[in-house]
C-alpha cells in the first residue's frame, strides 16, 4: 500500500528550549545521552528516561553518521502520538571513531510507532539530511541560542 506524504515541518516540532549547545568534544554516546536526557521532559508522561535511552541506543547500533557531520539518532515509540525533537550543536565537534567523521550537529527524532506516521518519518529524515548541509551547520554553530537556530531552521527548511 502506498501512503501519501503529509508535510510536517521541523520548525513546528523543534522548540528553541530543546536546542542544546554542547561544550568540548563529547563522545557520540555522550551526545546521545545528553539529547535523550534533554528531550525527556517532553515525553515523561509516556515513557521512563531509562526506557527512552535504551530504545534510542538500540536503534543507534544500526545508525550511521552522515558525511556532512550531521547525526540523526532516532527511535519510534508506540506511546507517543506526535513527533518530538531535540537538537545538539557541538561547535568543537565530536569524533565518531567508527567512521572518522566529526559530528557538529545531532538531532534526536522520536516518531510515533504507527504505520500512518512512517511516511512522515521518512520525509522528515530526508528533510533533515537535506537541510543539515555543511554550510548550514557552519552558520548554526556560530549562533548564540536556540531561538536563532529555530529561526534559521524555519528560514531554510
Amino acid at each position: 500500500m502506498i501512503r501519501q506524504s503529509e508535510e510536517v515541518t521541523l520548525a513546528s516540532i523543534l522548540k528553541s528550549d530543546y536546542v542544546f549547545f554542547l561544550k568540548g568534544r563529547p563522545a557520540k554516546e555522550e551526545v546521545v545521552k545528553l539529547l535523550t536526557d534533554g528531550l525527556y521532559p517532553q515525553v515523561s508522561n509516556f515513557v521512563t528516561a531509562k526506557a527512552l535511552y535504551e530504545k534510542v541506543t538500540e536503534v543507534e547500533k544500526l545508525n550511521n553518521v552522515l558525511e556532512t557531520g550531521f547525526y540523526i539518532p532516532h527511535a519510534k515509540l508506540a506511546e507517543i502520538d506526535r513527533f518530538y525533537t531535540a537538537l545538539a550543536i557541538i561547535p568543537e565537534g565530536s569524533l565518531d571513531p567508527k567512521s572518522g567523521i566529526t559530528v557538529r550537529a545531532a538531532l534526536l527524532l522520536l516518531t510515533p510507532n504507527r504505520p500512518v506516521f512512517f511516511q512522515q518519518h521518512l520525509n522528515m529524515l530526508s528533510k533533515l539530511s537535506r537541510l543539515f548541509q555543511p554550510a548550514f551547520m557552519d552558520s548554526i554553530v556560530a549562533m548564540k541560542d536556540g531561538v536563532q537556530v529555530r529561526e534559521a531552521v524555519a528560514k531554510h527548511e
Partner: protein
Amino acid sequence: MNPPSLRFKQVLVLSTAMLSFISFWKAASVVLCDMGSSAFYAGGIAMNAFGPAFPWYVLAVMLFSGLMLMVYVESCAMFVRGGVYKVVNEAMGHSMAKISVSSLMFDYMITGPVSSVAAGLYVSSLLYNIMPLMHINWHVPHKLFAVLFAVTVTAFFWRENIKGVEESTDKNFKIMGFVTLVGAVLIIWSLSTVYQRGFKLPPFDLKFTSESMGWMTNFPYLQTIGLVGIFMAFGHSILALSGLETLAQVYREIEDPKIKNLKRAAFTVFLFSLIFTGGLTFLASSIIPQDLIGGKYLDNLLSGLALELNGPYWARLVLQCFVVVSGSMMLVGAVNTSMVGSNGVLNRVAEDGILHDWFRHLHKKYGTTYRMINMVAIIQIIVIIISGGDIYLLGEAYAFGVLWSLVFKTLSLIILRFRDDMPRDWMFPFNIKVGKVYFPVGMSVVLLVLITASLVNLLTKRVATISGISFTIVFFSIFQISEYMNRKKAQLYMPDDDSEEKMNMRKEAEIANILPELDKARKILVPVRNPSNLVHLKSVLETTDDETTDIIVLAAKISKGIQLEGETGDMAPEDKDLFTSVILLAEKYGKPVKPMLVFSNDPFYSIAQVAHAAGVDEVVMGVSGTTGAEVQLERLAIAWGMLEKKDNAARSVMAKVVWEGRQLSYKL
C-alpha cells in the same frame, strides 16, 4: 577534517551478451540456420541409401521433428540452460551425461564437415554450369573442390572463433530471410512446373543398397519384417533432424514472454522445416528425373531442382545461383554453429570439472578457449579430408550423435516426470495423471521410435556405428581422466574461480557515462547484495514491461579506505556469484537488465546517487535480515535527502522493500 567524499570512484557495468534478449523469429532463425541446412543434402543422402521413396521419409522425419521440438520445449521450460548435458545429468547422473555429451560432440564434429562439403559441392556444381558460359575451360573435380572449399571455410571459422567473434543473431535472421525468399520462389516455380507437367507421387518401395543395409545383411529374418525396413529408411533420413540442440542453446536468450516465445520459435522451426526441407525434397523428387537424382544431382539436389524447372535456361541458371548462394550461406553458417556449439558444450562440461583445465586455457590476446576450438577445428578438417568430399560417406557417419543424444534427452525427461513433480510451465501432450505424476504416454512413444531407430541404425550405418562409438569412447575417456585429474587437483588447491559465468565488465568513471544507455520511459533500480535473496528482482522481472522500463541492477560493494581514495577493486568471486544469479534470473524471465557494481563505503548513498543520476521512478530493495525493511527505508530516505539540493525542484522516487508475499512502498 572529515574523510573523503562518499561518492564512488568507478562504476563497473556488466555488458555480457546474455543480458540482451532476442525475439522468437531470431531464435528460430538461429536454429534453422543449422537444422534447415540439411534440406540441401538430406534428400540426396536418403536417395542414395534406399532409393526413390526418400521424400516420404524426409517428410516423416520433418513431422517427427515437431514431436522432438515439443520434447525440447518441455526441457527448456524446466531448465533455462537445459542442453543435453544438464538434463541428462539431472535425471541419470554424471556418467550418462558424459556419454550423451560425447555422442553430441560427435554430432558437432560431423555437422561442420557435412555442411561445408555440401556447400562446396553446391558451389562446384554452379561453377560447372557457369564457367563454360564465361568461356573458361577449366574443370575442377567436384569432390576435390568440395574438400578445398570445406577446409577453407572451416579454417576461416576456426580463426573467427579463436578471435571470439560473437555469432550474430541479426546475421542469422538476414540469412534466413534470404533463404526463405529463395525457397518461396523455388516452391512457387516448382508448383507451377508440377502443374504444367503433372504430378506423380514418389513410390513407397524401399531399395536398400548393400552398403545402406550394413550389418543387417547378416540378419535375413529381420529383413522380412516390413517395420524394420521402415525404420531403416527412417534412420537413413534422420540426419535432417540435426540442429535441435541449438534450440536449447538459444533458449536462454529468448525474450519475455519466454515460454510463449519458445513455443512460437519451435512452431516456426517446425513449419519451415516441414515446408522447406520436406516440401522441397518432395518437389525435387517429382520434378527431377530419377536417374538425375541418383546421378549428377545426388549431392546438390536443390540445384538440380532449380535447373530442371520449366522456363528459359538463363532464368533457371539465375535461380540456381540464388539457391547456391543462399544454401552456401546457410551451410557455412552451420559450420560456425557447430564450432560455437561444441565450444559452448565443452566449456559447460569444463565448468563441471569433467574436462581438464588445460583445455580451458584462455588465448592471450582474445581471451577465448582456443585449445577447445583448435581441437574441434582440427578434428573437423581431418574428417573433411578423410571423407574426400563424399557427402554420402559423411551422411553415413552422421545421425549417430543426433539420435543417441535425443534418446538420452527424451529418456531423461521421462525419468524427471517421476523424480521431479514440480509444476511444469509446459508439458509434452498425452499424459495420464497418476497421483502427482503425469505419466508421459506421448513422450514414451517418441522414445520408443527413437530407440528403435537408433538400434536399427547401429546395424545399418556401419560407418556411424564404428566412428560414433569410437569417438564417444575417446571423448568419454577424456572426460573420465579429466575428472579424475581435476578431483585430485581440487584436493590440493582452492576451487577454480573460472567456474563462474563469463563476465564482461566495463569500467566507467562516472555514472553519467552510462545514462545514454538507459533510454526507456521508466526506470527501476534494484539493489542486490545476496544471491539467495533476489525475491525483489524476481518480483520486478515478473511485473515490469521491459519494452518501456529499464531495469538497473546495482550491487554497492562496501569498500573502505584506500579504494575510495584512488584505486577501485575488480569483481571478487562473491560478486561473480551474485551477478551470475542475476543473469540466470533475467534469462529465466527473458527480460534485459543493466547490472552495475559500484564501490562505496555507504551502499545506501550509492543507491540514492545512482537512482538520482539515472532519474529512476522506483527503487526496489530486498529485505535485509540484519536491519529490517523500515531501517532500510530510513537509510535510503536520509541518503536521498542528502542528494536533494535546496534550490532544485524536489524529485520523488518510490521506494519499495519486497520480500516473500509482502512489500512496503513509500514515496521519498
